[in-house]
């Protein structure tokens, strides 16, 4: 094993200058074989918006967008990527993704309860913020013991609706191996379940506190379940004095584990590129092969060779030409979703969208909780991305496909457009009020002294991160000059139109 790891490191070091291009080499090879021409590199204005949304779930501030496009340095994209890792918004956004997968929710069917939800979300956010190596991250979630309020990682097991070893194993397989145990033969499921058979849960004097622990007395008394087998088929004898979760975690995060790193890099690829090398991103199995097998292998090796540093994988992908391609595809490539010939447009997630609307209009959203207890206090300026608790009530988030966090499946998040979503954005009092009452929009118009041209320019820069082209400027000027329209109505209608444009609603 060690020699293998060593040789990987040597290989990685030797390949250093080529590394960023390896993705592009493998993607291009396949595009060439299919006779497809990839889209051109995206413009700086598109890039700055895209990278902000993809890395932090936020729109770039106006001045950043402007400075970036004016910046002449050759490596400015690399520098911006490195800089965004350091933002708190990066940690908030990626912690949200983990909260989806780990079913972070106060109430029903996982019953974490608000206090534990907060502890767990904080722990996950810190893990992203501090760039905790992914093997350590998994090990801590899998092996933690203690109170749900004081040892946040134990909530990994508490978020599973029942305590059956088979359900725990199924959650572990989905989360860290991208495997659905429903597809497994019975023996394989039972073999893995044995590792989670001696987990204990007990309440304390504090309300809703629960301690999760390895039940050593029970293990000593009843012995360990027989038939523990790792999912790769290796049998393992369990000793009563050793927490079997530790044994499983050691196997899982070993550098030669066939599932662990592959599942994770596939998720990262799917999160950043919009579609997994294996699709669905959490459904890795022999009869669902990756679109680019060598690329998946290579990314997994990179993750292992870099001590499970996820940001290394992010960097590889974000700095590749494949990621930085324009979304505007040729007619021939319109149907290409698996070859990555162009950037895939996706509607902003519910949370990102409402945060973006509040950011440009200048306002906030009211979130409430039905759970009567003090930990559910939600400050007025709360961003949806950082909400943490999936039980928080918000008709908007529900309408725009926030995952219910019932199953931990990637497919729970629904970004498909619907008629009711369209109605809401086009014509609801909710959105209309945001535009009419938002302090940022009012300030923008005041600063522009209500003159149409600066208003249009500023609206484009704030909302779409680019200036209007000549045609758009003329359309806007003509609109605002119409008779029977008050000056603020004209400006609001323009903001309304930009908010409803695909360029605002989609990652592109």
């Amino acid at each position, binding site marked *: 094993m060690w020699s293998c790891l060593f040789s990987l490191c040597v290989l990685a070091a030797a390949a250093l200058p080529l590394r960023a291009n390896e993705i592009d080499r493998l993607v291009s090879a396949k595009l060439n074989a299919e006779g497809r021409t990839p889209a051109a590199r995206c413009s700086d204005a598109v890039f700055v918006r895209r990278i902000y949304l993809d890395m932090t779930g936020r729109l770039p501030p106006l001045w950043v967008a402007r400075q970036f496009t004016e910046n002449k340095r050759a490596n400015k994209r690399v520098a911006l990527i490195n800089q965004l890792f350091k933002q708190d918004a990066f940690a908030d956004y990626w912690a949200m993704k983990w909260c989806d997968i780990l079913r972070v929710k106060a109430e*029903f*069917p996982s019953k974490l309860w608000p206090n534990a939800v907060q502890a767990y979300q904080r722990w996950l956010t810190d893990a992203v913020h501090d760039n905790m190596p992914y093997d350590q991250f998994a090990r801590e979630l899998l092996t933690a013991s203690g109170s749900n309020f004081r040892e946040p990682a134990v909530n990994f097991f508490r978020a599973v*609706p*029942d305590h059956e070893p088979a*359900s725990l194993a199924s959650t572990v397989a989905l989360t860290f191996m991208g495997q659905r145990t*429903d597809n497994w033969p019975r023996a394989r499921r039972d073999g893995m379940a044995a590792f989670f058979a001696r987990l204990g849960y007990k309440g304390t004097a504090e309300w809703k506190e629960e301690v999760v622990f390895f039940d050593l007395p029970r293990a000593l008394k009843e012995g360990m379940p027989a038939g523990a087998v790792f999912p790769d088929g290796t049998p393992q004898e369990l000793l009563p004095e050793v927490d079997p979760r530790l044994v499983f975690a050691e196997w899982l995060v070993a550098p030669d584990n066939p599932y662990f790193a592959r599942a994770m890099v596939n998720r990262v690829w799917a999160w950043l590129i919009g579609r997994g090398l294996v699709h669905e991103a959490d459904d890795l199995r022999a009869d669902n092969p990756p679109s680019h097998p060598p690329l998946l292998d290579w990314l997994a090796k990179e993750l292992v060779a870099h001590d499970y540093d996820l940001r290394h994988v992010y960097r590889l992908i974000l700095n590749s030409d494949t990621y930085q391609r324009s*979304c*505007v*595809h040729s*007619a021939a490539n*319109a*149907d290409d979703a698996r070859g990555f010939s162009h950037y895939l*447009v*996706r*509607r902003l997630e519910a949370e990102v969208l409402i945060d973006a609307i509040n950011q440009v209009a200048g306002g906030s959203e009211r979130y409430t909780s*039905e759970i009567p207890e003090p930990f559910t206090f939600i400050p007025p300026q709360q961003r949806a991305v950082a909400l943490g608790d999936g039980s928080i009530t918000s*008709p908007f988030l*529900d*309408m725009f*496909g926030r995952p*219910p966090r*019932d*199953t931990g*499946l990637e*497919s*729970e998040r*629904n970004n*498909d*457009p*619907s*008629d*009711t*979503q*369209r*109605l*809401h954005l*086009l*014509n*609801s*009092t*909710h959105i*209309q009020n945001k535009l009419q009452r938002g302090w940022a929009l009012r300030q923008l118009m005041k600063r522009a002294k209500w003159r149409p041209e600066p208003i249009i320019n500023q609206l484009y820069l704030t909302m779409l991160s680019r200036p209007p*082209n000549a045609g*758009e400027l003329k*359309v*806007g000027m003509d*609109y605002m000059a*119409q008779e*029977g*329209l008050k000056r603020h109505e004209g400006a609001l*209608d*323009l903001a*309304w*139109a*930009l908010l*409803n*444009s*695909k*360029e605002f*609603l989609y990652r592109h």
Partner: protein
Amino acid sequence: MTMTRREMLKTSLAGAAGLTLCDPLLARAAVAPPVATARSVIQIWMWGGASHLDTFDPKPGAGYDYCGPLDRAIDTNVDGIQIGKLLPKLATQADKYSILRSMTHGVNGHETASYLVQTGHKAGDGLVYPAVGGVVSYFKGHNAGYKGLIPPYIVLTKPQGRFSEAGFLGSRYKPFATGGNPSRDPFVVEGVVAAGISRQRQERRRALLGSLDTLGRQMKGNAAFAAADSCQEKAYDLILGDAGKVFDLTEESDEVRDRYGRHEFGQSCLMARRLVEKGVPYVTINYRNWDTHKQHFQSMQRQLPQLDSGLATLFEDLGERGLLDSTIVWWGGEFGRTPKIQWDPPWNGGRGHFGKVFSSVVGGGGFAGGQVVGATDARGENVADRPIYPRDLIGSIYELLGIDPTATLPHPQGLTVQAMPTASDGQDAGRLYEIMKGVRA
């Protein structure tokens, strides 16, 4: 595994009555897709749980500590059926609905009881089932060729919250909550009717949006964008086209609007009638303020006359328009309220939660009217005859809609999940055969 009280009751009942559904062969025979008599459901959800004693199960003989000032029952237009004295208009329509007086589930928490009554499943087995409206929307909505622009599952006016109405079916089967208040003019339906934006400005805005769709124009042929465009077209058909006029209550005569009552509930009933007239399969009126722990009787004096005019006129109007045969009206909340009144402070004459027994009302769409099913004891504290579980009622509604209660629902993890629990789950759903017209037991 321990048996709950309910399961025990169920098992002993099945033994006593010899319920045939336990027999797998017979159960399979019952699976033949039922013939639909109903096309739509109007569900009047009594949010918080309405008192059964003060509405459809009066106990005038139980004394002041049970009846308070509502100490009289009134005759209805059906011989032998009496209801509470604050419901005189409903008394004239009793031939159109049946009263289920022995509803029971024994749960006294709002959330778990609501979940149980709205899904037919008990909470806590790890799955989150869809509410009846979600299931109907799945079987009778867009998948079944429902073409209306109006969403197939509508809630007047606020969503029910707390639990996800669509359950594991996902957001596509969630209800469209109108927002606004139908007793105001205009009824501002969120997204469809905007207050203060003229038609001319709407049209100008639409044109502006079209001419500024720069990215959309660059990406002709993109499937994701094409789907978004089609949603936008449909949205505008509702905003500017004729379909949205269904929400314009000023199209109704003053006489009709007055008859329903010029309050939120009355006009919601009228709105519901207009929606089922257009073929909408499921409308829920989320009727709030029935969780009357304190000063219960003051609330009843204020609210029951509104319930009376709205619901009675709904039955009458549906009947006059020939819609009652195809429309199920289902009235009820998550539980009843304690028969014994809490006179002491802080309640000052209040009633608490009571899941042990409560009343529901159903009529139309194949449910016979003019019947009482089940009975409670002298003080309305226990089921005296024929317990009815929420799953029995829901299973019956599905059957009248032509939905097989044992049909499989799509589950995200590919589990086989049936709409209603069956004998193999230890809680088979019965049916209300005694009031289901033309359906053989």
